[in-house]
């Protein structure tokens, strides 16, 4: 005999409503005006702008780093001014000469003779050569330091980043490298009008790498669960895929976000814990791959006879399904930001333009923001700086405004890191994401191997400021870390595909902690013990090594 639920203590949970800004001055460079679009510009403009903008920064850092070196090595203004056996340092763009990189001329030559091999997932090899070039010329970099940098875990070089090298020219005309220097982490993004208050707690040196911020003083009592505001980050919803369980996971996610799911909590505390957690989510960010290509059923390929019906095997209207999902979520007052990814119909070149909102119902649908890829946004109302120790592990976080409680987010759909992955021998995608921050450029391999719109006079992927949260979608697994100083951290979040893993990342705006919620759907076939068809498990804060 079921007993009625006890009356819910307190008022019904309401969703927090922090302020939101799409940071127009930072997002504007990514928007391409369709009227002025022109593909006839050359990519040399992009490389030139990158060098012009990042070179002064790198020069300054290099000077600080190497001014105490014996021999007082000078900075050469042009690479071609190199003289033999003179210790000096030069700044330029890195170019990796990789024999396994897909080369259109070789492809054409091969097309005539043999079947071309399948495209490789990675194209680094032992025969790669590293060059440094600027407007005047290029020089090949040799030496142990370069080899070590390329091979070390968490290191690596890709084409297109701006680097300073200290060394001297050898007799064969190559440049023997003694030390390298990059642009370094930029400052945190501060909204105009923010007052930069003093950081709480001790500042821990440079904070890059694996340091934990021990000894952070916490000024106030830790925020209780009721007061934290969360932002949910999902990537790879993959609506429209063939597998039915993917849609079931999406439904579970929707139910959790709207507060329809959940029951008596497993932990002590108030009832309907799950519902309360879902209610504290203030915004949902879909970071890429919300749609996939619908798979044609086998029936579609057969010639249609006029007495058979035209029904396809699997009714595939991905955009309709997605707009239903989104409207369900929106109806519970949860605003959504939609960032396109590699499999979304938003264009193949970066920066991908926003999906037209008419696909999801038009301008009358409020709360849905279609954004470019990559995109900046800012969600407000963070309390004063407040990080508890055991949440800080390696996270790369883009900076936040400290005193005015605004968190700036910056995210991509994942193509940038996937492309960097092809150049490096390691699998450490988190360190690749951190390196893009250190290089101050999120997509250095564009336009070499990553398709990019040919901007005639700007390179919008240069990072001038760090955001508080840097999220990257469509990665193989969930990883997170904090980078930066202890009082100005940036959290990097790598989001896995929801269709594959069912994980949703939750980020607390106030404390920058990050946890995941995982939805899983057991397989349909032969479920002997008959437990429920859906499940949810939560993990605490993920400690990354």
């Amino acid at each position, binding site marked *: 005999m079921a007993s009625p639920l006890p009356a819910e203590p307190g008022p019904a949970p309401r969703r927090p409503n922090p302020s939101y800004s799409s940071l127009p001055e930072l997002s504007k460079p990514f928007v391409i005006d369709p009227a002025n679009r022109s593909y*006839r*510009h*050359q990519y*040399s*403009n992009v490389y*030139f*702008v990158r060098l*012009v*903008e990042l070179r002064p920064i790198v020069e300054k850092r290099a000077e600080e780093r190497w001014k105490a070196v014996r021999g007082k090595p000078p900075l050469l203004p042009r690479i071609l001014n190199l003289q033999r056996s003179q210790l000096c340092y030069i700044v330029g763009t890195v170019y990796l000469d990789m024999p396994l990189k897909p080369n259109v001329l070789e492809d054409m030559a091969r097309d005539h003779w043999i079947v071309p091999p399948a495209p490789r997932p990675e194209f680094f090899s032992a025969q790669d050569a590293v060059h440094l070039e600027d*407007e*005047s010329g290029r020089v090949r970099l040799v030496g142990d330091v370069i080899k070590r940098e390329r091979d070390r875990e968490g290191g690596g070089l890709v084409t297109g980043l701006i680097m300073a090298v200290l060394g001297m020219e050898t007799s064969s005309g190559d440049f023997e490298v003694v030390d390298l220097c990059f642009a370094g982490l930029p400052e945190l993004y501060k909204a105009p009008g923010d007052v930069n208050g003093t950081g709480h707690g001790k500042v821990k040196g440079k904070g890059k790498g694996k340091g934990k911020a021990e000894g952070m003083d916490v000024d106030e009592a830790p925020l209780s669960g009721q007061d934290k505001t969360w932002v949910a980050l999902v990537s790879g919803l993959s609506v429209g895929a063939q597998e039915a369980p993917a849609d079931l996971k999406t439904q579970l996610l929707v139910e959790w976000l709207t507060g329809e799911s959940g029951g008596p909590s497993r932990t002590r505390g108030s009832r309907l814990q799950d519902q309360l957690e879902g209610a504290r989510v203030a915004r949902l960010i879909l970071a890429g791959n919300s749609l996939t290509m619908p798979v044609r059923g086998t029936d579609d390929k057969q010639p249609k006879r006029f007495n058979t019906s035209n029904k396809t095997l699997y009714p595939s209207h991905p955009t309709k399904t997605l707009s239903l999902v989104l409207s369900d979520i929106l109806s519970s007052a949860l605003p959504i930001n939609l960032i396109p990814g590699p499999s979304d119909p938003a264009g193949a070149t970066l920066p991908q333009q926003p999906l037209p909102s008419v696909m999801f119902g038009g301008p009358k649908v409020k709360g849905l923001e279609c954004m470019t890829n990559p995109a900046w946004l800012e969600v407000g109302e963070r309390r004063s700086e407040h990080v508890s120790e055991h949440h800080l592990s390696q996270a790369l976080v883009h900076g936040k405004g400290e005193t005015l409680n605004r968190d700036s987010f910056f995210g991509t759909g994942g193509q940038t890191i996937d492309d960097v992955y092809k150049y490096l021998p390691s699998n450490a995608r988190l360190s690749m994401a951190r390196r893009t921050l250190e290089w101050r450029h999120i997509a250095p391999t564009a336009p070499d191997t990553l398709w990019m719109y040919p901007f*005639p*006079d700007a390179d919008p992927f240069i990072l001038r400021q760090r955001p508080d949260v840097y999220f990257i979608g469509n990665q193989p697994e969930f990883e997170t870390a904090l980078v930066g100083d202890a009082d100005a951290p940036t959290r990097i979040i790598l989001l896995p595909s929801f269709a594959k893993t069912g994980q949703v990342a939750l980020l607390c705006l106030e404390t920058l902690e990050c946890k995941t919620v995982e939805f899983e759907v057991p397989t349909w076939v032969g479920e002997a013990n008959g437990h429920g068809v859906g499940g949810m498990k939560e993990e605490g804060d993920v400690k990354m090594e």
Partner: protein
Amino acid sequence: MPPRKSAGRTKKAAAGLSQPTLSFSSRKPSTSDTLAKPLSKAQSRSTASLGPSASEVSIPSTAPDSDVEPTPDAEERALREKGRKDAEDKEKARRGGRRTLDPKSKEWEGLTREAKKAMGGMQPIHAGPDTHNNVHHILRVFDMTSKYGPCVGITRLERWERANKWGLNPPEEIREILTTAQGEDDASYRENVLSTWL
């Protein structure tokens, strides 16, 4: 004398070597003579003939109302009227009209010297005395200066504006050259030197 534009053009077109023709802007300049001169010079350049039409290549109108080709006498007159003309030009520019470009003007001498030094005193390739005056030389060196960015694909004025935006300090005189009447109408001034090839 009118240039032998028709003869030159058809001969080259018959040989299959015709170059792209120019589209003249419909904008009316502030004085009538400035239109005649650039048209004639531009057409002669479009045939790229190094022949006798060379005589037209030099200075634009030295006297405001004359349509006569410069002769040695005219040059002396030009020198006398140059001071008056420069003042007129500046006045015109201030009033919003476009000034005419005078390649022999003293304003460009500093740049010409620098340009010649940058080229090491050598003559650029395919630059005969009839198609290439000192202003062309200045602009060509501006194109090839890698400090201001790649020159391909945009006009010289756009490149100048872009270099200015990036803080690279391109010389102000080049902008003045490029915003004169000839600088805007004449493709050999307006487009970079590689524009017909790339």
